[in-house]
Structure formats: structure tokens, C-alpha cells
């Protein structure tokens, strides 16, 4: 790391000079909490995911600590993983501590994404716990001079089956490490006898969140910490021409930090930093290179293609299509969307000569550690990233970028620095969920059965390497230029019987805005297109949409969720649209969609009832029913919370959300420009869980998002006879579509 190119120090920074408390409340000054309990004592523990000690520690008092790189972003992982461990080891959940996302303490089980928290994070820890169970039986067998098969485990102790006194875990282990490899064949508890898994236990973080006691990253502080705000350019790539530091001379104790085109203000007082960032006068070069969001659909269609890929190639649809009884085609479009986290991203970095610590709400502590280390020239083993809760992130929001901001600033000013983005930073600069364009064609026979199907889609190509960090780019630091928004091409083929299917992706070299994974990447838009088009086929054939789907499926789990959702919504079998469509001022209808998430995981069927106001185009969802099969259910209440969240959030994305930008910058930079679902729009939601205790658990953080847009579009079609193929379904767009009908 080289010295800063330009730093000005207008006045000596003095902590606390900006604002004094003369009578403190209770404990008074901002809480300085240990980042995560037990951290210091655990340093140096094993991290190798092959070792039991990397995942679990049994303490002398019999309590247990679990270590995982999977983090609980409001998803319930903290209770669910405890339940899995409690079940294998017969310990109460409240005797299990949970350390998450700390590169110095937790094994790298991958980042928290792709709904892998339970199926990878939890399942690996469960296997470690099962290994520990066998080890405890063996230790006790030696101690009690009895064969292990005459011993049993209950209430955090090993007991002779025949009766008599047992030995507590804490005594058996004696504070030592277990020094064992995880045994992939260690037997698991019999699901038929589960006592803790499957119970709706309350999440441990909720009381703190409801009383102001839960410590978010935004609430965390370290001694000597300064506050900073970054002044972003008016366009990505704009050059900083000049800075007028006198423009903030009236604000106390502010320091302007500049590194090439990276511009920030640092102050002891947070409000001073906020005001200085707002008032600092800087001039930037004029950059107008974006195509604008107005005609993005046609821009995508004409963008340069890196390569074409046949994602699915079954039979010969081109040959079969012309011979089919009827052919249909349609184009579906999904816009750029923002994670739009409710709290702007935040980070604290403390860079010292002996090593650096970064507190972050990133969903991938290890990935962030590796990226920051490489980018800023810090040896990986001297950089520790510690996760603390931020606002819900739903993928990679601004968290990684703000961590780079904080690290660069701490490195520059030699003090711990806290950076919290402002609202416009988060909406304007978070890496976005990509736009998706799909052309669909299908041929059906005289009974409406699919003969041939073709999906052609335009998607941004994945470029290996991490996405460029804003701070590093602005400061002129060389870094990889990766592009990755997740697995975008899944669920683009129909899950129904079809002899000839081809799905082709035109992987685009680049798209106008920086990308990242946004909840259920790619799958929502793909399922929107596929499940809407299936409805078009059913309507063309004059068939009931539920019966049409069930006829094309043979997997009993798929049929079960569809049957269930039909019962939940009192589905009346008939073709769409509703015979009363387009009669009267308030149009009502029902629609459904089915998705097997990633074509290999959760089975989700969703149905909803909508009403559309004919004069305004306003669409209101009255009721949503969801039948959900994710295999083994660990915690049904937490699971329901996730499913409900997927439904409401995706209704928001479908009804309201589109990132707007002009030739220079994102212009939808607050909640007025980027509206989301509001309470008066909240529908009644009913969720049915189809528990499969003998089967593996899938993650549930995303799957129920996938069918939402299609179910809504299908319900609007049923109500109005008008097919919506472009998201968001704003009132203006629906009104215009109704006027054309």
C-alpha cells in the first residue's frame, strides 16, 4: 500500500469534541461490546473443516460452542443449527453458543448464499456433532469400564443403560480439544425420535431486536474510532478534478481524505461527517456512458454476446415445432433491481501494523477477507473479518464495498474508522440484481400437451474473479474485474413433460451496472417467464391451469404441493381468464405457479387471489397460499417466517421495483424513487409445510420467491384477460395494458 496521494488535516481530530454528554444515562456512552462472545479465548483453535474441533467445542461446564461461516441474516439459522446439534448430542439449545462468520474462529463452509445455511452449514455441523456423540460414548466406556453399547446419552451426560450415575460431557472432555476428524459415517439420530428438530422454538435474537438490546454492526464501536462518509462521484468512473476544502470549514474537526478519485470526510462526530460529506464542494469529470434504463430491453437484445450456451438440449424442438397443432411465442422482461437494504451498509476497520480487523455484515466473511487482503496488500493471515448483523442483505448489498471504504480509510488515517453509507449510497451504488430478457416459443398438440419448447435468454456472463470494489477502483488500486450475479440460468425450462426442449443463454459481455447475487438469483425472472408462458399454453388449450400443470408432472412431491395449494385457495377448476374478466370496475381473479427450485431442490406451489382496479390499474393481492416441501423441517416457525418473507419481498419486486438510471448514474436513490411494498398492500398469507423428516433438508431462504411473480401475473390474467410480461406491474403499466385490451 502506498502513501496517500493527498491528505489534508485541517485540525487535530479530538475524540468527543463535537458533542458532550453532561449527564449520561445508565451505562451512558455507546456500548463497546465484545464482537462475539468468547472470541479472544478461542483464537488459535482449529479451522480445518475436516476437524471436529473446527465446528464444536465442549466446555468444562458442559456447554457447547458451535462455529460456522454461515451467518444468520434474520433467517433463523441461529436457532436451527442449535436444534440440529441439540438433537444429536442431547443438550438443551440454550446451552449452545453460536459463533458465526469470524475468519479467525469459524471454519470456511462457504459464504451464506444459495440457501446453503442448513443443507451445507447445518448438515456439516450435525455430522461433527454425530462424531462427537460416538467419541463421548467411547470416552465414557473407558472411564466406566463398560462397552459403549451399554451406554446412552441424555441431558448432556453419558449414562449406563442399566442405571447408575453418569458422567457429564464437561467432565469427560475436561476442557480439551477432541482432536478428531469428522466421521462422515457417524450415525445420526433417528428422525422418528426427533425431540428438538421439528419444533417451532423461538429465535434467540428476537427479544433483543424488539428491545434495542441486540447489537447490530451499525451500533458497534471500538475505542478511538472515527466516523467517515464517502463522497461518491456523480457517475461511475468520473475523475475527481478538484476539491474545495473551505466549503466544510465551518464544520468542526473534519478531515478531508483523498486518494486519487476516492474522496471521503473523517470526523470524530458522526453528524459532522454526514454534514461535511453533504456540503463538500468537489468537481468531477463529466461521464455519460450508460444507456439509460428507458429502453434497456432493446439494449440487452443488441448487446455484445460473449458466447452462447445450450443449458438444456433435449430432442429436437426446431424440427418438432412446425408439426405441432399450435405455436405460441412471448417475450418476458425483468429489470435491474436493488437489494435496497433498509439500513445502509456499514463497516468498521482497524488497520494496525500487526494486523487488521474488519467488522462487516457481509454474507461471506472468508470471501471478503480474501478479496480485501489481495486488493489492499495485507497478508491473509493478518486480516480478520468478523461478522455482525446489519440490515437484511438478501445477497451482496453494499457490505463488501463499505468494508473496502473503511479499510482504505483506516489504513490512511491510522485510526479505526467506521463508515456507514447514506440512503443514496445504498440505492445508488449497491451491486444490482441483473436485468433478464427471455424469448419463449412452444408448440402444443391438439390436447394442449407440450410438443416442443424453446427458451432463448439474454444474461450477463459470469467473469471469474471478484467484482471490483468501489473504493479500490476510485483509489486506482489494481484489482480483478470479475462479474458474478449467481446461478442465473436455472429454472428456465418447464418442469412438465415435454419431449423436445432447448434452453439457450446468450451470455452478454457486460451490462450497464455492477452486478451481484440478489435473492434467488435468476430464478425469479426465469420462473416468471416459464410459469406465465405455461399459463398461456393452458389458456390457449382452454384448460384449467392447475389441472394442466398436474397432467404434466409425475413426481409425487410436485403433485402433493399442487394439490395442497389448490385446497388451500379453494381452487375452482376452469380455464383462465375468469368469465367475468373485464366486466365492472373491480376485476378479480386467481392464479398459481409451481417451481422446483433450481430444478433439484424445494417443491413450491403458490396460488393467489388478486383484484385489479380497472380505472387506475392498481393491483392488490388479497390472499396468498403456499405449499412448501423442503424435505426435513428443522424449525417450522422460522421456516414459515422465511417463506412469508420470500412472498412479501417478491410481491414488492414484482409490483414496484425497477432501478432507474440516466446516461450518468442511478437516479432511483431513495424510497420515493425506488418504492417497495407498503403495509396497506400486505395480503393475507397462508403457508403449508409438507414435512419429510426422513429426507435431507433443503435451504428455504429463496425457493418460495421463485413462483411469486408468475402466480401474480397469472392471477392478473385471470382477472383481466391481460397478460403482463414486463416487471414491475406498476399501476401505470397495468392501466395501459388494460386500455389496449
Amino acid at each position, binding site marked *: 500500500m502506498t502513501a496517500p496521494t493527498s491528505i489534508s488535516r485541517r485540525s487535530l481530530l479530538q475524540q468527543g469534541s463535537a458533542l458532550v454528554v453532561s449527564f449520561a444515562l445508565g451505562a451512558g456512552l*455507546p456500548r463497546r461490546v465484545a464482537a462475539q462472545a468468547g472470541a479472544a479465548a478461542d483464537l488459535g483453535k482449529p479451522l480445518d473443516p475436516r476437524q471436529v474441533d473446527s465446528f464444536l467445542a465442549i466446555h468444562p461446564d458442559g456447554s457447547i460452542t458451535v462455529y460456522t461461516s454461515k451467518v444468520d441474516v434474520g433467517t433463523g439459522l441461529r436457532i436451527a443449527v442449535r436444534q440440529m446439534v441439540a438433537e444429536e448430542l442431547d443438550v438443551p439449545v440454550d446451552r449452545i453458543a453460536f459463533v458465526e462468520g469470524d475468519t479467525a474462529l469459524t471454519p470456511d463452509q462457504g459464504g451464506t448464499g444459495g440457501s446453503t445455511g442448513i443443507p451445507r452449514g447445518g448438515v456439516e455441523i450435525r455430522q461433527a456433532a454425530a462424531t462427537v456423540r460416538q467419541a463421548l460414548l467411547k470416552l465414557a466406556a473407558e472411564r466406566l469400564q463398560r462397552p459403549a453399547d451399554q451406554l446412552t446419552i441424555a441431558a448432556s451426560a453419558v449414562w449406563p443403560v442399566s442405571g447408575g450415575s453418569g458422567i457429564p460431557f464437561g467432565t469427560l472432555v475436561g476442557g480439551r480439544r477432541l482432536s478428531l476428524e469428522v466421521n462422515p459415517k457417524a450415525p445420526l439420530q433417528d428422525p422418528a425420535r426427533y425431540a428438538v428438530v421439528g419444533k417451532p422454538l423461538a429465535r434467540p435474537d428476537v427479544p433483543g431486536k424488539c428491545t434495542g438490546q441486540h447489537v447490530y454492526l451499525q451500533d458497534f464501536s471500538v475505542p478511538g474510532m472515527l466516523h467517515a462518509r464517502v463522497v461518491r462521484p456523480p457517475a461511475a468512473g468520473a475523475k475527481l478534478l478538484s476539491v474545495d476544502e473551505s466549503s466544510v470549514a465551518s464544520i468542526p474537526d473534519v478531515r478531508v481524505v483523498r486518494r486519487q478519485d476516492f474522496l471521503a470526510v473523517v470526523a470524530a462526530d458522526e453528524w459532522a461527517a454526514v454534514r461535511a460529506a453533504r456540503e463538500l464542494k468537489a468537481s468531477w469529470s463529466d461521464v455519460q456512458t450508460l444507456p439509460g434504463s428507458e429502453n434497456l430491453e432493446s439494449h440487452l437484445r443488441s448487446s455484445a454476446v460473449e458466447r452462447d450456451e445450450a443449458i438444456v438440449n433435449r430432442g429436437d424442438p426446431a424440427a418438432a415445432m412446425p408439426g405441432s397443432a399450435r405455436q405460441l411465442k412471448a417475450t418476458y422482461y425483468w429489470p435491474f433491481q436493488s437489494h435496497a437494504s433498509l439500513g445502509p451498509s456499514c463497516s468498521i476497520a482497524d488497520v494496525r501494523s500487526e494486523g487488521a480487523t474488519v467488522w462487516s455484515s457481509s454474507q461471506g466473511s472468508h470471501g471478503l477477507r480474501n478479496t480485501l487482503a489481495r486488493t489492499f496488500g495485507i497478508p491473509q493471515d493478518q486480516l480478520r473479518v468478523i461478522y455482525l448483523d446489519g440490515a437484511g442483505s438478501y445477497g451482496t448489498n453494499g457490505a463488501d464495498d463499505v468494508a473496502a471504504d473503511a479499510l482504505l480509510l483506516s489504513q490512511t488515517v491510522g485510526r479505526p474508522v467506521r463508515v456507514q453509507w447514506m440512503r443514496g449510497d445504498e440505492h445508488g451504488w449497491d451491486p444490482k440484481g441483473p436485468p433478464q430478457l427471455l424469448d419463449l416459443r412452444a408448440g402444443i398438440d391438439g390436447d394442449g400437451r407440450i410438443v416442443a419448447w424453446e427458451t432463448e435468454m439474454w444474461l450477463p456472463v459470469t467473469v471469474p474473479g471478484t467484482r471490483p470494489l468501489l473504493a479500490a477502483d476510485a483509489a486506482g488500486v489494481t484489482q480483478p474485474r470479475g462479474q458474478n450475479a449467481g446461478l442465473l440460468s436455472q429454472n428456465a425450462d418447464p418442469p412438465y413433460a415435454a419431449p423436445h426442449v432447448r434452453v439457450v443463454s446468450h451470455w452478454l459481455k457486460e451490462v450497464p451496472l455492477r452486478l451481484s447475487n440478489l435473492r434467488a438469483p435468476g430464478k425469479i425472472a426465469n420462473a416468471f417467464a416459464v410459469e406465465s408462458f405455461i399459463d398461456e399454453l393452458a389458456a390457449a388449450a382452454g384448460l384449467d391451469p392447475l389441472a394442466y400443470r398436474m397432467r404434466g408432472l409425475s413426481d409425487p412431491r410436485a403433485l402433493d404441493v399442487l394439490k395442497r395449494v389448490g385446497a388451500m385457495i379453494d381452487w375452482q377448476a376452469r380455464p383462465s381468464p375468469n368469465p367475468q374478466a373485464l366486466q365492472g370496475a373491480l376485476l378479480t381473479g386467481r392464479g398459481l405457479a409451481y417451481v422446483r427450485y433450481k430444478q433439484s431442490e424445494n417443491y413450491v406451489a403458490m396460488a393467489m387471489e388478486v383484484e385489479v382496479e380497472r380505472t387506475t390499474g392498481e393491483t392488490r393481492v388479497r390472499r396468498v397460499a403456499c405449499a412448501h416441501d423442503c424435505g426435513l423441517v428443522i424449525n417450522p416457525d422460522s421456516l414459515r417466517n422465511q417463506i412469508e418473507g420470500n412472498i412479501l419481498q417478491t410481491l414488492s419486486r414484482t409490483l414496484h421495483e425497477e432501478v432507474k438510471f440516466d446516461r450518468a448514474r442511478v437516479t432511483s436513490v431513495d424510497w420515493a424513487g425506488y418504492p417497495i411494498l407498503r403495509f396497506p398492500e400486505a395480503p393475507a398469507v397462508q403457508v403449508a409445510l409438507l414435512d419429510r423428516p426422513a429426507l435431507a433438508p433443503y435451504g428455504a431462504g429463496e425457493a418460495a420467491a421463485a413462483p411469486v411473480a408468475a402466480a401474480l401475473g397469472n392471477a392478473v390474467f385471470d382477472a383481466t384477460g391481460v397478460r403482463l410480461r414486463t416487471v414491475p406491474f406498476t399501476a401505470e403499466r397495468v392501466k395501459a395494458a388494460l386500455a389496449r385490451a
Partner: protein
Amino acid sequence: MARYSMKVNGRAVDVESWDPGQPLLYVLRNSLGLHGPKFGCGLSQCGACTVLLDGKAVRSCVTPVRQAANHAVTTLEGLGTPEKPDPVQAAFIAEQAAQCGYCTNGMIMTARSLLNQTPQPSLEQVKQGFAGNLCRCGTHTRILAAVMRAAKA
């Protein structure tokens, strides 16, 4: 530096600020260590920063500290604790009406204010009463259920 007296969670405090326009939110969080209220937008658009000023919900991100002077401020911490929660807090916990929980402060403070004025609201009244509060995780149905539960408590 100007000094402001106010009552915060039942206790008299004096705070000093170099800027009479400094939003109350920063005073509460950084000077008084009260982290219940959250910075969400700074624009009075989302509600995450909501506190009660003389019992009524206000957005502390746009309430200058001088306006709070000589008034009573209640934050989420002032309602109750995990051990002794206010009925609204208890209802939110019972319904597990939080995911990330970043908006929860605003939801509970808005509910407290709403129920102070309308102790037995209809579901529709609650929905309208929360029209200015944003939740990004999609916890709406649980939050509504929690407010209805609190009204019955």
C-alpha cells in the same frame, strides 16, 4: 456549544451539540448510547428511526435536537427490556415478528403511538397506520398480527 435539556426514557439529561440542526437520532445513538432507533434513510421515508416525543411517534432522523429540547423522548429501550417487555414488545416477540429486525424499532414505536391513540384498532386501521413504515424482509403479516395481539393484551 449549545446545551439542550430533555427527558429521555424518564430521566433528565443535558446534551451539547455544535449544531442546533443536528438530528435527534445522532444524539440518542452516539451521545446517549441508545441504539434502538436506527438510521435508515435520513429522509423521513422509512421509519427505522422512530421515537416518541411526548408520547407521539416522530422521525428522529429529521427532528433537530433543538426541537426536542424541553420535551420527553422515549426510545425502544425506554419501553421495556427482554425481561420486562412492554405489551407491544411482548407481542412482537410472541409473534416472532422480526427477521433482520432493523425496522423493528420503528414498527414497535409506531405501534405504541398508534395504540396510545387508538387502543382497539381494526386490521385496516393498523395497515393504514403503518403506511409510512417500510419493512424490507417482508415480515408485514407478522408485524400486523403482533400489533393486533398487543391491542388485545
